[in-house]
């Protein structure tokens, strides 16, 4: 039984829909990679799963954590879930910590909020947690302010706050994008270690398909607020079926490749979506048929939202 089951969630602001029917499920300890360009609904998915859609946004559909339905529950219940059952690691460790609060307090806060620990006990727990995420000399480092730490250490602190209550689901929204490449690998290894230890299910959001390829068991490619292709990571990467996935992979740098392919055009604006398939204006395989919106068709463990998916997959093989 999946720990998280998301069914057909929509987020809309008035007449404008940002998420248009996103569904996926996640097993304990597994990682789902979410890829796509900026502004395709990745971060909005993260916020929706936290019950933190911006004011004015309307969230519909179903989010089930174990058997519990989250959509429609009162804010008070969301507060119990956030940070305890579902945690979020944000992109920028330079801004996601409070600059005028000691990092130890910021980790201890989570214990105080969710386990009603007294302050001194929460502080000790925070020091242990900082030790666990590999902060050197945690007892002393807990007394530091964020500006006294490096970017990598700060992201470790952020990860400590996220894992403090051993959440069932961790949403990592571009957790390494703000870090340089050598640090990326360390931070990813840390997340992997903690994930294994706590059997956490991870939703890993990134625009970097290379990082996703290493991290994710399963991959979901987002375009214009919808999943356009989903499946087991290696299968999707080896045999992409949707033209957008193909294009994303073609844009990856590879040894011996002198020119990177790029995807022509811009992602569509949500208030001005193309008729039919959202990707069709940028698609090189466009046909008259694409004036109709394709649905996400499942075939074994693969899903793709394209009229010509089978045809294109065959031609790629042959």
């Amino acid at each position, binding site marked *: 039984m999946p720990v998280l089951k998301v069914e057909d969630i929509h987020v809309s602001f008035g007449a404008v829909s940002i998420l248009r029917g996103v569904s996926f499920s996640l097993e304990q300890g597994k990682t789902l990679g979410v890829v796509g360009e900026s502004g395709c609904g990745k971060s909005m998915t993260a916020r929706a799963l936290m019950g933190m859609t911006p004011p004015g946004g309307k969230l519909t559909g179903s989010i089930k954590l174990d058997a519990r339905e989250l959509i429609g529950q009162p804010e008070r219940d969301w507060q119990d879930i*956030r940070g305890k059952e579902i945690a979020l690691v944000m992109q920028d460790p330079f801004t996601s910590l409070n600059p005028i*609060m000691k990092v130890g307090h910021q980790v201890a806060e989570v214990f105080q909020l969710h386990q009603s620990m007294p302050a001194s006990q929460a502080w000790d727990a925070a020091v242990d947690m900082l030790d666990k995420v590999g902060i050197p000399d945690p007892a002393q480092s807990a007394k530091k302010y964020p500006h006294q730490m490096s970017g990598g250490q700060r992201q470790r602190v952020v990860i400590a706050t996220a894992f403090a209550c051993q959440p069932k689901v961790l949403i990592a929204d571009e957790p390494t994008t703000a870090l340089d490449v050598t640090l990326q690998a360390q931070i990813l290894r840390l997340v992997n270690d903690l994930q294994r230890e706590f059997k956490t299910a991870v939703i890993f959001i990134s625009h970097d398909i290379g990082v996703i390829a290493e991290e994710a068991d399963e991959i979901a490619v987002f375009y214009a607020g919808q999943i356009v292709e989903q499946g087991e990571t290696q299968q999707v990467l080896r045999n992409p079926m949707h033209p957008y996935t193909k294009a994303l992979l073609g844009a990856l740098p590879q040894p011996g490749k002198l020119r990177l392919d790029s995807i022509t055009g811009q992602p569509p604006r949500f208030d001005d979506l193309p008729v039919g398939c959202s990707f069709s204006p940028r698609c090189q395989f466009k046909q008259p048929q694409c004036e109709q919106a394709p649905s996400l068709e499942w075939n074994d463990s693969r899903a793709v939202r394209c009229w010509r998916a089978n045809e294109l997959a065959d031609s790629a093989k042959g």
Partner: protein
Amino acid sequence: MKFNWLARLGAIYLVILTLAAVLIPIFRPYDRKVGPVLASPSMQFWLGTDDKGYDILARLAYGARISLTVGISVQLIALVIGITLGIVAVYGPKWLRNVILRFTDGMFAFPDILLAIMIIGIFNDRGMRPVIIALSITAWPAVVRLVKTQAATLKDREFVVSSQALGASTFYTVTRHMLPHLVGILMAVLMVELAGTILAESALSFIGIGVQPPTPSWGNLISDAKNLMNSNPMVLFWPCLILSVTIFALNFVGDGLRAHFDPKGSEPN
């Protein structure tokens, strides 16, 4: 970050003023004839005596008590009202936000002194209480505006969002993560606003509806001495000097604090 020297000087002056306000009236009577009428400054009466033979220094010091008590009380009340409404104006339901902000705008459109005169008119007693209430009612809109703009920017900062993502309630996020960021800017603005309140209190006393004589508030002292302007200008000079210097000092300290807490912002001027 260093304070500029004007702010330091202002701070030192304010400390001396506060000490004088607390201590001098204990040792020197301010409410009876203690020497000859209109005496020149001497070792006994440092600033001389007024037309009733009262000690000018003692009366100025007691006036400082009144001014500081009124000013600080008013600012504290304005802070409590202003922070509460300012935060509600950011986090509250939309209709309530609009009510608060439009009402605040309305308050800005109304001349403060006129409103204060009106409110004082409602009360019967003529002590500090009606003055404090009237000036508090005119002082809070400035705090609401400041808190509202600051909180609105902080609300979308990632550490505030991540506090909520960790399961904190809005109240917790605001008190633990937001208000500490406002302390600096609020202190800076408080100083400048305090100057305005002290000036307003003096103005109300000067026109005779503030703290009533014979209690020597600075406004009363100026009002009493204006008839002596031609014969004994020094009696008028001292309260005017103290009032002006206090206003300057508060503004200097306010500017210094602002520069200190917001190094990228305005230069101290």
